[in-house]
């Protein structure tokens, strides 16, 4: 593309975030549908989407609440799903740590898989970017994704009640999770983590709601980390 003017960091972010909209829209729609199908009100559904703004954790919380799991189990399992956000936060710190506190708080709220991946790759490629430009870029990436996330959740929540059971919407959740996980399985360690977590989750299915998932997830994490350590040592 021949461009004579230097694009502002904000607008570059807007452009670089565009491709994710095709994933965010349907995913948000699914959440709105799944949550209302499970018996949550539109207001509660929007509460999740605006206050939590993390698809996988929202699906987890909705699933466990609809199974009448205790609050501490719902919170532990959902926050467990979000633990990776702490890693994203750690990874952004060298780039954005010098920004004003309110800007870091805003970036933290908007730090999702897609924005983190897009921004951190750009920062790595262009380390000379000023801190204020890096913040503007990050906000640009999320400037359409966040509103689309809210809007499509609402559409799903409102239209979901009109969708008949033949559409098997119960299966939207496992399909979305498997679709998120499969591309992330890139090494033997990833595969080992996933396989052990699945087996443990199935074996622990008789435990109180959510507890089995928690144990299985932690066991999978330890398996992945241990596999990675041994493979590195063998090299």
């Amino acid at each position, binding site marked *: 593309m021949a461009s004579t003017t230097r694009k502002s960091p904000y607008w570059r972010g807007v452009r670089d975030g565009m491709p994710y909209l095709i994933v965010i829209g349907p995913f948000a729609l699914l959440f709105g549908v799944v949550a209302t199908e499970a018996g949550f009100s539109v207001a509660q559904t929007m509460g999740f989407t605006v206050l939590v703004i993390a698809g996988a954790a929202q699906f987890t919380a909705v699933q466990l609440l609809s199974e009448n799991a205790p609050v501490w189990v719902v919170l532990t399992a959902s926050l467990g799903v979000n633990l990776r956000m702490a890693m994203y*936060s750690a990874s952004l710190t060298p780039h954005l740590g010098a920004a004003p506190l309110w800007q870091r708080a805003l970036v933290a709220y908007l730090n999702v898989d897609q924005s983190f991946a897009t921004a951190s790759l750009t920062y790595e490629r262009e380390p000379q970017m000023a801190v204020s430009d890096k913040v503007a870029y990050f906000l640009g990436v999320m400037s359409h994704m966040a509103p689309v996330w809210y809007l499509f959740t609402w559409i799903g929540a409102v239209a979901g009640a009109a969708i008949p059971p033949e559409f098997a919407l119960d299966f939207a959740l496992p399909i979305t999770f498997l679709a998120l996980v499969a591309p992330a399985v890139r090494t033997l360690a990833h595969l080992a983590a996933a396989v052990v977590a699945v087996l443990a989750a199935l074996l622990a299915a008789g435990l109180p709601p959510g507890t089995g998932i928690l144990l299985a*997830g932690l066991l999978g994490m330890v398996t992945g980390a241990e596999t990675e350590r041994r493979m590195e040592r063998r090299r």
Partner: protein
Amino acid sequence: MTVGSGTIWLVIGLLGIGTFLLRFSFLGLVGDRRLPAWVLRHLRYTPVAFLPAIAAPLVLWPAATDGMPDPARLAAAGVTLAVGFLSKNVLLAIVAGLFALYGGLAVLPG
């Protein structure tokens, strides 16, 4: 679901605060200190461990069929995994999985 509205809002509020604190943690408080390597190594496997652990029982024992394994849903899960793994494309995997699900529900015995 028998959980009350107040409990649901409590979960929404606490989950919102907790998620924000996870995202804010290092960015807001730690500054430029680095995490120990073993912690990072474990955190790397959080999504690939938790997401399939949540999905697996739903795939094998769907509530919609009263916990009976369902050929269409099993096929849809397999197609989603295969397309996602081969294409590395989340959206494509979702679309393929939905096609397999509806195709399976129309063709396979329930």
